[in-house]
């Protein structure tokens, strides 16, 4: 008998605290599969943020540091500058990365720090109970935008990939989604590309994953995937924004 599906070694054998229908579990698994496949588990150091994934260190089976809110890119820079041989990634939500940690992510990206950022965009603050995030959609109802996000009052949602892609240094920037199997497969491909670039000491790599939060959106998991498709995909296009030129490509072109 042949085992065709099992828990990746990079995941620990624990039950997560995530809500039903939450996409953190899927993304955790994708990261674990990629690290297993690239043989990087024993060199990996993850950075857990403040947010729903604050306890991510319990769910991965390799070294972890837990960071202050928004500071994961600073912590990752410290690790990578101390130990360039380690494979370092931050795992950050939209409040963590696009609000309180905006300065840290911009400057780490602009220095071209050679770690990977896994950015979970579910358009809401999860752990604190469903408040408005910098990525909350126009009109979206949250506990701190009870009449819907008013863009005249608080501006439009921030598109992090587009913002970072305007910088010259960061070389791998891609937005993917995890609301259906085809997108999940594509997301894994992007993560694998990002970690491979880090392994080869090429560049800063940033992968944004459009995700669902059925609990705080107030939807069933299925309704949540539909809402993501109808509301987030048009505003947050799933695409690669930047990819480093392969050696020789430039000369050939």
């Amino acid at each position: 008998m042949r085992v065709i599906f099992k828990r990746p070694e990079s995941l620990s054998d624990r039950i997560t605290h995530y809500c039903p229908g939450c996409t953190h579990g899927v993304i955790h698994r994708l990261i674990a599969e990629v690290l297993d496949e690239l043989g990087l588990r024993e060199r990996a150091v993850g950075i857990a943020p403040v947010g729903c994934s604050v306890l991510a260190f319990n769910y991965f089976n390799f070294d972890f540091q837990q960071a202050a809110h928004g500071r994961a890119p600073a912590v990752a820079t410290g690790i990578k500058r101390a130990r360039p041989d380690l494979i370092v990634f931050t795992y950050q939500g939209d409040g963590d990365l696009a609000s309180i940690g905006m300065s840290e992510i911009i400057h780490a990206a602009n220095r071209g720090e050679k770690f990977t950022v896994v950015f979970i965009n579910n358009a809401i603050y999860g752990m604190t109970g469903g408040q408005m995030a910098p990525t909350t959609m126009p009109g979206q109802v949250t506990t701190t935008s009870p009449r819907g996000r008013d863009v005249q009052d608080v501006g439009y949602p921030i598109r992090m990939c587009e913002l970072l892609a305007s910088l010259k240094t960061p070389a791998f920037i891609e937005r993917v989604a995890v609301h259906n199997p085809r997108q999940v497969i594509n997301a894994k491909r992007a993560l694998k590309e990002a970690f491979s670039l880090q392994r080869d000491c090429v560049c800063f790599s940033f992968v944004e994953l459009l995700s669902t939060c059925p609990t705080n959106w107030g939807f069933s998991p299925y309704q949540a995937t539909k809402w993501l498709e109808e509301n987030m995909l048009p505003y947050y296009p799933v695409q690669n924004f930047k990819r480093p030129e392969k050696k020789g490509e430039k000369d050939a072109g």
Partner: protein
Amino acid sequence: MAKVLMKGNEAIAESAVRAGGLLYFGYPITPQSEIGEYLARRMPEVGGCFLQIESEVAVANLLYGAAGAGARVWTSSSSPGISLMMEGLSYIAAAELPCVVVNIARCGPGLGGILPSQGDYLQAVKGGGHGDYHCLVLAPSSVQEAVDLMPLAFDRADRYRNPVIVLGDGMIGQMMEPVEFKEHNFPPLPPKDWATTGCKGRKPNVINSLYLDPVEEEKLNFKLAAKYEEMKRKEIRFEEMETDKPYQVLLVAYGTTARVCKTAMQRLRADGINTALLRPITLFPFPEDRVYELAQRAEFVLTVEMSTGQMVEDVRLAVGRTRPVYFYGRTGGIVPSPEEVVETVKNHLRR
């Protein structure tokens, strides 16, 4: 090694490099910018890393990451920048990570000014950031002493797995004095087997300060408290002057103001007034027992600071109501003169 004439900031940087502080992250701020400038030149020569970071908020979190990965890492700043680091320092203390932070203090509050001050005493010794923690605080009163304290700071940071603050002021950072870089030998340090260096051949390590279980959080707090008690037993450092003779007045001062007091003591002696000086070198842990003992031999205690009265709170805690404790301070970047100290002592004696 022969003595060389160096500016305080540059001497501190060189001493740190020689102590193995080869990873430095910082943000420019007067009056300590020469530390970063010196290291930007020096680090490439010794295979170290100097990196200018976007903010002091980020710097403290780089310290967290690098220390967590097992590196000997440090930074320097001045008062407003140190305030911005308090978030990270609280996490560093909670996660029991070693690092050294040099504060070449300037006057405040707010943006204040760029001249020397001792107004950061309470922030340095009482924790500074949120939660129940302390940093070990070393206070040099000369460029040579700053040079000598840097290796000690790195060693104790590693030994206690705790942030160490070297609290100077604009005077220490900016003045030039002859210094000698001596060899320092410390007992071997335990291996950093807790660091996140990749989990090959062992279970994963986690650097963390989140404890959702109150019992676990309390356990951490009591563990940290026990560490600070150990520091109180083993790390208290101070200098005494003229305490072996009878004296009427005990002066207590640290850093730059202790030097002013030494000059004042000579002038007072010429006028027939005997004084003694206790100069704390560790501000946390504070030499409270020695302050008490020496106070008992004096008519009163006078604490002199470049503040409106910060260390004097610890002096009063130590002395209690057994002797009067008076205070003299100047602020705004004004260094008290020896004449002012002499007059203050005489005024209190006349009462």
